[in-house]
């Protein structure tokens, strides 16, 4: 019985770390594939979600949060706006991932890169 429980725990742990377009890794791969240059993403403690990581993409501050469902990710878009603060930015759910980008250093005046950051993972 103990072995069965252990097996179930291992399976659950593995399934949580899956890769693909709906995972955080999938988001980062989509950016790289689209020609963007993401930094390393590290765990972030925010009010936006419980499972978040932050980093930069082409000098833009970016937060990626993973939610149990697409509906929850969508519902967290407003919380993403709060993370952006008083600057240009976007908060967009792509499946179970919420992508929040803030141009705090005015690195993207035309918004073209911001647009890529939030749209590339959907393509």
């Amino acid at each position: 019985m103990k072995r069965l429980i252990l097996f179930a725990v291992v399976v659950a742990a593995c399934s949580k770390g899956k890769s693909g377009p709906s995972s955080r890794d999938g988001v980062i791969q989509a950016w790289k594939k689209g020609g963007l240059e993401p930094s390393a993403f590290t765990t972030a403690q925010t009010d936006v979600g419980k499972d978040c990581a932050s980093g930069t993409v082409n000098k833009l501050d970016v937060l990626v949060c993973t939610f149990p469902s697409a509906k929850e990710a969508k519902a967290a878009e407003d919380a993403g706006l709060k993370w952006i603060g008083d600057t240009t930015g976007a908060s967009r759910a792509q499946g179970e991932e919420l992508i929040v980008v803030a141009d705090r250093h005015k690195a993207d005046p035309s918004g073209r890169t911001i647009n890529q950051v939030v749209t590339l993972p959907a393509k």
Partner: protein
Amino acid sequence: MRKPWLLIVLICLAASPALADHKYGKQVRFAGIHPIPKSEGGGICYIEGPHVHIYAANKLEYRVHDDDHVFVGDPVAYGYDGPKYAYKGPHPIQVDAYIGGDPDVEYCYIQGPHYHYFEPADGPDFKLVGGAYFYVGTPPPPMIEARPQYIGINAYYQPMVYTRPVVEVDAPVGWIGARAEFVGPGVVVGAPGAVVVDHRGGAVVAPGVAIGAGVQVAIPVPTVSVGIGVNVGGPVVVHDRPVIIHEAPHGKFKGHGKFKRH
């Protein structure tokens, strides 16, 4: 309770954060491509979906859709260099078709030839003639009622120097520009048989234009072509090449008026 007004004030105060929970601090919500104010550097913001800035949107060129400010003016006037579609005359805009969100129809009141970065919804209300879209549907009452509020956009664009579409085609039957309620005051007067340039939008209207004092009644006549022209705020149209517009569109309409992006 002795002071019921106090209760009302408290309820309002308690409710206010909920009303403002779609933005934070100095944020102003936008959706779709729009110009950037000169004070913020100018040019175009190319973020397609909902996003925020910390500058305001003017009331003449923007409409509010699902809390977001949506630009309904001509982006080419501000240097937009993406796919664009030529229109002539006022027309409805199915905002949700290219922005998403709840169903919402807003209205563009630019009288002359102009561009948008989206195509109109499929259907019989728009006719594509010579590369430009003409609205030939029946204008709904809200469109007519709101016209005085937004007609000033023509004076706003008139002095702008940029490459407008030059529409030299015969307007199709039923075009909104020929309707009495959409004929604005102070339009160019031209004798029949002469070429008339609409100073508002650089439109070249060929023979058959009859004008009254401050009122224009346009009777569409000969057809020529559509090209690119440069209007320098006056009746000068410099023809460039004869064909324009569809530059590798990044989306198309499918079904009943829904815009689909690739």
